[in-house]
């Protein structure tokens, strides 16, 4: 597309098998100029990058790594659509860079043979050369270039070797135009059938105007229609019903003819392509006859060992999670400080009233309570990406497959579930690696049952207040610690049971087959890790900035309105003014003891006022309304409304409890927690005067929060990843039901045991 003036950006698409170093190449080429989104309607990650070469802008499109260009799902079809220029939001590729790993060259060239048939200019970026050399492989690159008819550039993306030559080769390929179609991959009989089908379909499309090229379907799509068993491929040809039926008939006939000619579909594809690869590489690749053990094999002997490997995996997990919690403390403190400073500033600048309250409690409080988890998400993603990039995660999935299969899942579900212990959001996003749709859905639905870090504040509060500090079994175990462990266990056990149930009912399918490449171990690229971690974190922030923002404001309104009538708080207000006056005079006289005393009294009154407002608000009324429903759990309306208020984010319940029990929302610090604990212990049922809280009530609250779906961000992510509103709704209903039933059981059992 030569243009006399300024040429538009060159669209360069990167594609290749997984574990070929494609992401490293993409990161090395585009640097920080990358953005990540989603293709409309599917969850395929749309990674775009930019660079400038010889005065021309390049638009880099990174497609997800795949072993084959035979689309099995709508997600995989996007890859084909992008390559064929049929994806509306992207220009058709000018050049395709096919990333080929030298140490697995046959399998990679199988994939390349599919790319070759698209009729686009292709450049091969040959990676993993050092690994191949270390294994004693020799590849005659010049010979391969002659046979394949495409440029091959050996690169080492992490070191930056070969990147310039690659860019030059891509530029030349763009100027030279289309690569010739390789016609000799399939046997002649098969090619004839494809051509016939192609001309039939071309005849069905709209008549060709004079001077126009006949617009038949791309040959590759026709070939796929003949090879792949599914019927969804008809969509490609935009046919009417009659033609579609005719096409189905024609394809069936063609397949039968091919079968009698010894070309059975679909075997013909793999057989022909691997034979083609063998012809192309014959005499050009030298491989040592007897291969010694590679470093990867030696490591695997230990890391995939049933006993030692499992122990190492357990150790890795322990270290990873303690890192998530301990490393995150510092940055979480900073974020808390920054949010506190912003609130302080707003508080000092605005007069008391609805606007100030909206900004403080609604906006800053709501969004702040979510942003606080950013450091944990960041660290978790950093460590997980690092483990993934060096090849360990495939081993972890391998080891866990044995356990996961009992619940109808495969080892691939392990990593997403694992990350859900920190936060379900990255966990659900990580399910994209699961090929089978039903497995992926099952994993998404059970991931929020893992006790995430937001549950921890609830557990800590309840355990500290009501579980006695007793050691059991002769001091080996602490009752409090055991209770915490039990809460985590409840989530895991219920998740396992749910997975088992889901896979036998609404998401019925056989246990998925597990085929996973165990890539050679390698040093991870820091650039790739950072880029991916930043993507995920931004994604999370975006979520916090939109849905959570909106829900926080709604919840604020429910707590703020309607304002309580002045009569209800007249006495307190009068007291407040009196105290404020004496506080001013005490300050003036410099009596610091008196100031402290008055400030304390004033604080109590403010908390009480807040409590009155809370009881009067929509939320308080809602709490009263649902009291009959939560009474069987041992809860009164105060706990009920605290639970309702924590719908957007479960950790909010701690602050709401603070307001409801008249000690103020500021209960994060130790002193605040102590005040709340005391207030909760003192709370009684108004009619009987019995204490509101006891161990069974604390247990029922904890169990409820372990299983409930009180997290709007998780529901939003489920909606996005499943592209529907039914699944988040289902998730919310089933989790809330489970939470209620188990909380009820916990309370009843506790009462029966006389705790």
């Amino acid at each position, binding site marked *: 597309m030569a243009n006399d003036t300024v040429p538009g950006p060159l669209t360069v698409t990167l594609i290749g098998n997984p574990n070929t170093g494609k992401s490293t190449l993409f990161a090395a080429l585009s640097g920080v100029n990358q953005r990540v989104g989603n293709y409309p309607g599917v969850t395929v990650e749309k990674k775009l990058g930019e660079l400038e070469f010889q005065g021309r802008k390049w638009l880099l499109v990174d497609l997800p790594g795949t072993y084959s260009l035979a689309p099995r799902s709508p997600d995989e079809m996007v890859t084909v659509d992008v390559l064929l220029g049929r994806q509306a939001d992207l220009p058709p590729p000018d050049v395709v860079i096919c990333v080929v790993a030298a140490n697995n060259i046959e399998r990679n060239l199988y994939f390349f043979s599919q790319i070759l048939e698209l009729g686009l200019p292709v450049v091969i970026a040959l990676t993993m050369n050092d690994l191949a050399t270390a294994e004693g492989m020799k590849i005659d690159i010049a010979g391969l270039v002659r046979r394949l008819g495409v440029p091959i550039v050996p690169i080492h993306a992490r070191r930056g070797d070969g990147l310039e030559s690659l860019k030059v080769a891509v530029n030349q390929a763009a100027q030279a135009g289309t690569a010739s179609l390789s016609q000799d991959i399939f046997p002649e009989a098969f090619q004839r059938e494809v051509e016939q089908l192609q001309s039939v379909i071309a005849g069905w499309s709209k008549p060709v105007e004079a001077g126009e090229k006949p617009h038949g379907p791309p040959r590759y799509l026709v070939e796929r229609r003949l090879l792949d068993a599914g019927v969804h491929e008809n969509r490609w040809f935009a046919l009417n019903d009659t033609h579609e039926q005719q096409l189905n008939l024609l394809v069936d006939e063609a397949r039968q003819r091919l079968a009698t000619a010894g070309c059975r579909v679909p075997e013909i594809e793999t057989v022909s392509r691997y034979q083609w690869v063998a012809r192309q590489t014959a005499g050009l690749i030298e491989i040592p006859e007897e291969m010694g053990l590679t470093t990867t094999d030696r490591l695997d002997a230990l890391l995939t060992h049933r006993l030692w490997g499992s122990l190492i995996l357990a150790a890795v997990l322990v270290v990873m999670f303690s890192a998530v919690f301990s490393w995150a403390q510092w940055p979480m403190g900073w974020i808390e400080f920054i949010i506190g400073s912003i609130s302080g500033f707003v508080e000092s600048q605005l007069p008391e009233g609805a606007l100030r309250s909206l900004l403080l409690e609604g906006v800053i409080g709501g969004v702040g309570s979510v942003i606080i988890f950013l450091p944990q998400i960041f660290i978790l993603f950093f460590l997980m990406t690092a483990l993934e990039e060096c090849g360990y995660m495939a081993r972890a999935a391998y080891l866990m497959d044995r356990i996961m299969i009992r619940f109808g899942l495969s080892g691939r579900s392990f990593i997403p579930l694992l990350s859900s212990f920190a936060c379900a959001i990255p966990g659900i996003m990580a399910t994209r690696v699961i090929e089978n749709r039903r497995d992926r859905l099952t994993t998404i639905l059970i991931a929020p049952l893992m006790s995430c870090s937001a549950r921890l504040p609830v557990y800590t509060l309840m355990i500290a207040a009501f579980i006695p500090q007793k050691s059991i079994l002769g001091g080996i175990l602490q009752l409090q610690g055991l209770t915490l462990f039990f809460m985590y266990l409840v989530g895991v056990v219920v998740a396992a049971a749910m997975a088992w149930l889901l896979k036998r009912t609404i998401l019925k399918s056989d246990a998925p087959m597990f085929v996973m*490449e165990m890539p050679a171990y390698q040093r991870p690229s820091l650039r790739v890790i950072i880029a991916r971690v930043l993507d995920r974190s931004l994604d999370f922030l975006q979520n916090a900035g939109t849905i959570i923002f909106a829900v926080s404001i709604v919840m604020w309104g429910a707590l703020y309105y309607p304002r309580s009538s002045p009569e209800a708080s007249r006495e307190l207000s009068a007291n407040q003014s009196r105290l404020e006056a004496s506080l001013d005079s005490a300050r003036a006289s410099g009596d610091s003891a008196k100031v402290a005393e008055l400030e304390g009294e004033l604080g109590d009154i403010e908390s009480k006022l807040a409590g009155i407002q809370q009881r009067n608000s929509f939320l308080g009324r809602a709490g009263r309304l649902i009291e009959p429903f939560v009474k069987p759990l041992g809860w009164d309306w105060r706990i009920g409304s605290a639970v309702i208020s924590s719908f957007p984010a479960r950790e909010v319940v701690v602050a709401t409890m603070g307001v409801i029990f008249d000690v103020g929302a500021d209960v994060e610090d130790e002193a605040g927690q102590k005040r709340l604990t005391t207030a909760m212990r003192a709370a009684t049922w108004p009619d009987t005067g019995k204490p509101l809280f006891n161990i069974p009530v604390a247990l029922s609250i904890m169990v409820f929060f372990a299983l409930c779906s009180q997290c709007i961000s998780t529901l939003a992510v489920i909606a996005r990843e499943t592209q529907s509103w039914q699944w988040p709704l289902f998730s919310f209903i089933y989790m809330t039901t489970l939470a209620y039933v188990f909380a009820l059981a916990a309370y009843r059992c506790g009462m029966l045991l006389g705790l």
Partner: protein
Amino acid sequence: MMTDLPVINHDETAEGISLMMLRPGQTGCVCDIVGDSKLVHRLREMGLCCGAEVKMIRSGSPCIIGLGRQRLGVRLDELASVIVKTSTDACRECQVHTPR
């Protein structure tokens, strides 16, 4: 066409046996893959096609097999099974190329 597999006591056999029956370190030559067509195709795409030489690296379920230089963690069960022959002659029957 899958019949009950006879118990194999000797190391080399021209009879097809399930890949799962290979002992660690033993190699076999793929002669058929049976089962769900999509999964079979996926395995073939990974290079596990007729004539390919596979080596059992870690047996069990899932097992780790070596296919050329690639290592695959695979769980083969009722969904798909790979039939291999362990005799050296058997491989020559397959005219199909062996991915190295």
